[in-house]
């Protein structure tokens, strides 16, 4: 598997079970973020094969895949000039979800008192929380979370762990990249270790 004219990933042979939590670990630069982007159909696959949620990564319509994916990245920011609430309303409208869900999501992640702040004024952790709220509105089938703990405070991490359990119980699949071991260790079905663009264990 290649990407961006540079061999980001090669020798990745991975199968993820539906409705399980897979954790990807590995040293910096191992290719975790790249793998997650690939799984979400955010980057193209240049060689090798992959099928995610029934969509072929190489020849299939990756847009179909992306509609079913939720992504929380290192830089989880949205339209910087819209307020927290406006961003979520945009997502809800785009997905034809009732706009009423937005306020529920906001208070679940603890941003209700910041709902009229423009996104660019948020602190790092608040931005992560907004990312989680966005996912709550999205309710995707495949959750791809890149270092979800980063910048979150204790309460945020606890909330996140609770959310994970809920999501898995709801039948969605979760792939998380992490440097810290997840605290909700009992939920983890499989841990994959990457090194130098390969899955090593």
């Amino acid at each position, binding site marked *: 598997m*290649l*990407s*961006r*004219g*540079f*061999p980001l990933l*090669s*020798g990745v042979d991975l199968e993820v079970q539906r409705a399980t939590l897979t954790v990807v670990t*590995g*040293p910096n*630069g*191992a290719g975790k973020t790249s793998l997650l982007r690939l799984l979400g159909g955010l980057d*193209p696959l*240049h060689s090798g094969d992959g099928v995610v949620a029934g969509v072929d990564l190489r020849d299939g319509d990756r847009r179909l895949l992306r509609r079913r994916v939720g992504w929380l990245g290192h830089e989880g920011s949205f339209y910087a000039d819209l307020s927290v609430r406006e961003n979520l309303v945009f997502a809800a409208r785009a997905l034809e979800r009732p706009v009423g869900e937005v306020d529920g999501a906001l208070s679940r992640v603890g941003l209700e008192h910041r709902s009229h702040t423009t996104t660019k004024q948020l602190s790092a952790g608040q931005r992560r929380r907004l990312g989680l709220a966005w996912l709550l509105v999205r309710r995707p089938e495949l959750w791809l979370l890149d270092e979800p703990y980063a910048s979150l405070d204790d309460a945020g991490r606890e909330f996140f762990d609770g959310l994970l359990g809920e999501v898995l119980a709801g039948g969605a699949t979760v792939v998380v990249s992490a440097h810290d071991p997840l605290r909700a260790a009992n939920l983890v079905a499989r841990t994959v270790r990457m*090194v*130098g*663009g*390969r899955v090593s264990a």
Partner: protein
Amino acid sequence: MMKVTQRLLGPVTLLLLALTFWMGLWVTPPDKVQGNLVRLLYVHPPIAWVALYVSFGTATIASCLYLWRRTRSDAMDRIAHCAMEISVVFIVLTLVTGSIWGRPTWGVWWAWDARLTSTAILGVFALAYLALRRANDDPTVRARRSAVFAILTAINVPIIHFSVVWWKTLHQGASVLTSTGQLNVHGSMLWTMLIGFVGFTLLFFWLLRERYRLEVSRDARVRTRVDEALATRRSEGA
């Protein structure tokens, strides 16, 4: 059959071009008004024809084929790229031969004439295409974007054409075949022009083939470099 055509392409091109030059310089008579300058007639129009229609046409068709899922292949992307590169060369040649012709006939090298301007704009399109390719590293992204750009360019060709048609123009109109369908050039001149058109068109395809081969071998070299990079990548952190 294919092989024979392939092998013959180069020699036939050379033969036709040599024939054009020989007939153009020695067989055909000088013009009453233009004198020996008229001999540019055997070079300039065919080159312009290749620059505008043959090469842009090839690039556009190849781009469409690339974008259509069923015929998508790297080859189409490469053909479009090579055709556009050759088009730059031919557009420059058009401008040069035209300017050389224009200096004695119109008294200036360049004028704000519709045809000249639109030729220059097309040249800029071709350069912009190459710039766009340079600006993208990822092969897929590059191929898609440049294919869309080539198609947008194709839209512009008729627009440019029409936007200048109503403009009074210095440049020669359709002078070889008049609207009554009557031939108004000397017989040997017509033959020379015809051979010129065929010769320069073949020259385009010959260049295209050579350029394409070069590109393929460069891609192969890139691939070996990628393999090397892959090896170092795999040894990382091991």
